[in-house]
């Protein structure tokens, strides 16, 4: 499939009891670029990700999926959207190799294609020598890279990453972002949710989420200008009153 996929949400809302995790969020993910979803903990980033991945259904509004600007049902595009959950989501008692084998079967990847991708992924993540190590024994950075590898194995058109660098050391974080830049070249639409504000500046487009509401969307520099701040931390440090 060579067509371009893009996603939109039209005023979706999702509440858990009295908490409104998402409040009337309309978001557009332009295809082929690296999007950042920033906001403090509890802003609703994970809920939004889950709604985009079809793991949760919004109570109001809907998530729309398009190929070449033509609306398609989620079930048709599901195979091209990959998701990496925020929580520990790998099997501690399976090795790197066994994870890749498992996802190969889950995504129904042909064997020759699999061998090629596996070799490539192990190379860029520099995990080749740890192939037989159990996921439970990997370092934080390696673990996240394995997670990314598993979601990249199916050559997705859209990649949803929920706080992929959370709890990872600075060097591994930089490596991780370099991996993402490489992906950008291959025209994959990426959405990275993060609570690290410095990472926002690495994205081509940033969506600011706070208390379940989408406060702003735009290019990073443009947004900084708009808020009249020098970095993204300040947007939230100044308090929510300043979030336009």
């Amino acid at each position, binding site marked *: 499939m060579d067509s371009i996929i893009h996603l939109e949400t039209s005023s979706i809302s999702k509440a858990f009891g009295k908490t409104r995790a998402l409040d009337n969020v309309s978001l557009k993910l332009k295809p082929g670029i690296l999007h950042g979803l920033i906001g403090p903990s509890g802003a609703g980033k994970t809920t939004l990700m889950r709604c985009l991945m079809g793991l949760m259904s919004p109570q109001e509004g809907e998530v729309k999926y398009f190929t070449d600007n033509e609306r398609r049902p989620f079930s048709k595009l599901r195979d091209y959207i990959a*998701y990496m*959950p925020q*929580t520990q989501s790998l099997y501690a008692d*399976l090795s790197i190799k066994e994870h890749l*084998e*498992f996802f190969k*079967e889950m*995504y129904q990847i042909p064997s020759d294609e699999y061998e090629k991708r596996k070799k490539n992924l192990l190379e860029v993540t520099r995990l080749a020598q740890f192939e037989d190590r159990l996921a439970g024994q990997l370092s934080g950075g390696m673990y996240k890279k394995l997670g990314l590898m598993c979601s990249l194995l199916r050559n997705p058109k859209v990649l949803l990453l929920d706080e992929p660098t959370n709890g990872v050391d600075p060097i591994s974080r930089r490596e991780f972002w370099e991996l993402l830049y490489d992906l950008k070249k291959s025209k994959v639409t990426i959405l990275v949710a993060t609570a690290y504000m410095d990472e926002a500046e690495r994205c081509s487009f940033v969506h600011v989420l706070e208390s379940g509401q989408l406060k702003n969307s735009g290019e990073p520099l443009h947004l900084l200008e708009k808020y009249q701040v020098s970095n993204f931390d300040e947007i939230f440090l100044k308090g929510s009153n300043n979030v336009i």
Partner: protein
Amino acid sequence: MNWKTLRGFIKKEFRQSLRDPVMQRLIFLAPMLQLTVFGFALNNETRDIRMAIFSKPNDTVIQRFQDKALASGWFIKANVSENDPFMSIQSGEAEVAIVIKDKKVEAATLLEPVPIQILISAVNSLRAQAIESYVQAILNDTLTGNNSSQKLIQIETKILYNPRMETSYFLIPALIGIIICLITVLLTSMAFTREREAGTMETILSAPIQKWEIILGKAIPSTLLAAVNSFLTCSAGAVVFGIPFTGSLFLLSLVLATFIFTTVAIGIAISTISQTQQQAMMGSFLFLFPALLLSGLMFPVENMPPFMKVFSEINPMTHFNYIMRNIILKGGDLEFVLIHVGVILGIGIISFYLAFRNFKTTLN
């Protein structure tokens, strides 16, 4: 349904369950150990009953009774320190006391009968019942044998299928059922909750995998493990306890397969309604204990009040016990076996349906 996806899922399940050496031992060795230990220990044959006799000296009838009782192997002579029947039981020196006060039993006539009093300690009521029936049987035997020329009615009892009334013949088939149940219900009820707690459920659900594939991917490994286990336990039953297994092995396999299917389905149904492994564990025991108690192993189903009988009849273990005894001891009546296999299968299908309906492919 994609068989390759399913195969990949099953492979992963096996790798996970068998990676841990402790789990390996728990899955394969523990059932064998349980069977052997329970089989020997759960022996409800009453033996070594301490018996004290208080009678006039040289009472030949009582003497003969005592000889028979001791020869039966059930009774041993109690060491009694006092000459008070009640005290001998109170002190625990004897469990049963035979008391004949005034004269010898042989002197009994129609006009002057001799009362024989039997005192039994019923601290353990099951044992007391057994003692009573043993004593009466031996007494009857002794007394009718006394003047055998006058015997008008002769009772000749022949016990069929289990002539030596071996308890193990009754217990082992049920134990096989319990062990299968423990393995399948416990293992599979953890199936989804473990993934949910580990966070891996989110990964699986976001992959293009069908509901059926996930459920079967969990059900098939447990089924295979239970199948291996039931083969091992049946073999142990035959080798260690000499269970005859008179019926056809094909019928036996059919019954085991159906029973495993149903217990796996119950495990999965429990798994789909539990959020945590703890809940799944409690849910499993909520099924396992009543299933065990109402299976007719401990209390005959016929003696239960009608209300309880209903629960007994919807309990797959009850039907499993019916069939296993029938096949192992009687050789298996095809019709009887098929009816009960049908009931077990029905329970399994309903459980599978409930599991399928309750299984959510979203995190809502």
